[in-house]
């Protein structure tokens, strides 16, 4: 299947952002683990790995704007709706279980992991219901 130029641009952006994520995350983990990060820049070092992830959300938004094929765009919109539904539902259920002391606390960024997992579910739903997309 031929991919659009918007899809190619999206992939290039995501690859660069993923590389940037690794470049920010590894030193941050090492620095905090070995107490090498001065308090004055601790917040900055902690936030830096989050920014490329935010960038991926922006890249998805740019793709939706730039994609000229309305059907392919609709497939991605459906995927993102599934991703949002899955991640927000999981966060809500987990939040209540955590509030009532039934399960342990998890870091907030797991919502993002659940969102990307939901993106995969959305791809499978597209494949099953429309025969297009992928899982």
């Amino acid at each position, binding site marked *: *299947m031929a991919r659009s130029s918007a899809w190619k641009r999206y992939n290039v952006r995501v690859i660069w952002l993923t590389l940037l994520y690794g470049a920010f995350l590894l030193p941050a983990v090492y620095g905090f683990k070995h107490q090498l990060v001065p308090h004055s820049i601790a917040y900055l070092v902690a936030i830096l790995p989050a920014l490329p992830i935010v960038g991926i959300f922006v890249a998805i938004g740019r793709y939706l704007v730039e994609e000229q*094929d*309305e059907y*392919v765009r*609709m497939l991605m919109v459906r995927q993102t709706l599934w991703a949002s539904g899955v991640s927000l539902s999981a966060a809500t259920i987990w939040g209540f279980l955590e509030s009532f002391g039934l399960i342990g606390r998890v870091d907030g960024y797991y919502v993002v992991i659940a969102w990307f997992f939901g993106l995969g579910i959305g791809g499978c739903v597209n494949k099953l219901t429309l*025969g297009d997309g992928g899982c």
Partner: protein
Amino acid sequence: MENKLRVLRAERSWSQQDLAERLEVSRQSVNAIETGKYDPSLPLAFRIAELFSLPIEEIFVSPSRRSSKAI
């Protein structure tokens, strides 16, 4: 939405890819429209109609007319 896209395409011996290139959309879009899985936007429906030099209602079957016929 029911449509006559497959018939019109076959009359011209066009593949789905040929039609997709003429409409500047993906082959999967043409397939989804032909099989009724996806209803095109009004601008795309007009592009299809103009490509075949037919009014939109001669290519796409109105869902309300289809249901009234069934009654």
